[in-house]
Each structure stands twice: as structure tokens, then as C-alpha cells.
């Protein structure tokens, strides 16, 4: 399931819905990303997430399908917020449910790596009163590259 939204989310409610009535799901791996005060305490006043409506949903649906095809999962959840967020705010939630914990963990890491390099979101940081676009990181590219040889167990 894919949700691209301005609103906050409740991980407890979301994960309960994901495994509700699925009695063969023993493993729920999840990752939550928060707005981080990268420049030191109090320096970051806000972060605005811009995205490409339409393409975002399209990319995340492809990502969900890819994860379901690669691992023995029951379900996948990706929630990504956009708009103006404050330090400590929730940005993203990825979750994968399975009867196998290794599959759930690996799929969840895969979702995050792919999302960091493929989902059309851009972060604008406000630090000390100045706004600047966050630059993409090479190590996110490297992390995503490890999934490209179609090797499920790394």
C-alpha cells in the first residue's frame, strides 16, 4: 500500500492495519525516517519536502511491486509525507510483513534504498534563516546499487 500525504501518520495504527486478519504474518519490519537537525541543535528550523505528484505514486507502486516480487512477503507499506516539517517530525514509513523475518528486514532496507534514489522528492532545508536544497548523496546511490544485480540475499 502506498500513501503520499501531507498529514502525519501513526505507526501503531498503520502496522496494525497491515497485519490485521493475516494470521500467518509473524514478522513486521519497519523503518521510519525523521527530520534530523543536521546542522547541530536548533540550527535547522524546518524542512520542506517537495514532490512530483503523480510520478511519486507511480514510482512507489513500482517499488512495492518489485519488493513483493523479490521476497516472500505478505504486504508492503510505504507512507511518504510532503510539505513543511519540523525537526523530529516523521517523514517516511516503510514496512514489510512476512512469515520470515529475514525477508521482512531485507525488503524494508531495499524499500528505503530505492526510495532514497528513485522517488521524486526534494528537501529544502531552512538553516539559520537561509533556505537551501539538500544535495543527493553518493552513498545513497551506492546503497541502492547493491540491489541491482537482482540478488535477493545480497
Amino acid at each position, binding site marked *: 500500500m502506498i500513501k503520499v500525504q501531507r498529514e502525519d501518520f501513526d505507526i501503531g495504527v498503520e502496522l496494525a492495519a497491515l497485519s490485521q486478519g493475516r494470521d500467518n504474518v509473524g514478522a513486521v519490519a519497519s523503518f521510519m525516517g525523521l527530520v534530523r537537525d543536521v546542522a547541530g541543535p536548533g540550527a535547522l528550523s524546518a524542512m520542506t519536502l517537495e514532490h512530483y505528484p503523480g510520478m511519486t505514486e507511480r514510482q512507489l507502486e513500482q517499488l512495492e511491486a518489485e519488493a513483493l516480487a523479490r521476497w516472500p512477503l505478505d504486504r508492503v507499506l510505504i507512507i511518504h509525507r510532503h510539505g513543511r516539517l519540523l525537526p523530529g517530525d516523521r517523514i517516511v514509513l516503510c514496512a514489510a510483513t512476512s512469515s520470515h523475518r529475514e525477508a521482512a528486514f531485507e525488503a524494508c532496507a531495499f524499500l*528505503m534504498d530505492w526510495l532514497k534514489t528513485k522517488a521524486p522528492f526534494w528537501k529544502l532545508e531552512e538553516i539559520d534563516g537561509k533556505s537551501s536544497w539538500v*544535495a543527493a548523496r553518493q552513498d545513497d546511490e551506492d546503497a541502492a546499487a547493491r540491489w541491482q544485480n537482482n540478488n535477493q540475499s545480497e
Partner: protein
Amino acid sequence: MKVLYFAWLRDRVGLSEEIVEPPVDVATVGELIAWLAQRSPGHGEAFADPTIVRCAINQDYAKAHERFNAGDEVAFFPPVTGG
């Protein structure tokens, strides 16, 4: 055709979208970038380094050599930084 700009590409171009009519010999993403870069100083600045510009045709990633059609939605943006 409709062209969209996001993040700092939009800031530099000064537009979030525009309707353009490139000549018929402009057929690939790379050629479109070179053509758009001539439209204004802002466009020139946005496309100054094409290697850090990403493109999507109809909401799927497209590389410089790929061709677009007249009715396509073409978007330009920096490398993504979500998650």
C-alpha cells in the same frame, strides 16, 4: 508539449511549468535540454550542467538519448533527496 520543473531547477528557470514547441529536429531529451537552455538566462543557469539534471517522460525516468513525443509530459529535476 508541457515541461515541468522541480526544486532548484524551478527556482532557476523561474517557472514550475511551461508549454513549449521545440522544432522537429529536437527529438531526444538531450536535444531538448540544449534547446531549453537557450530560452532565457534562468533556463541557461538551470541546465548549465546537464549531468546533474534528471528527466522523466510521462512520469518515468528517461535518459539523454531517449526520444519524446509532442504530447508527452516532460519533467526536469535534480537528483532526488527523499526518504
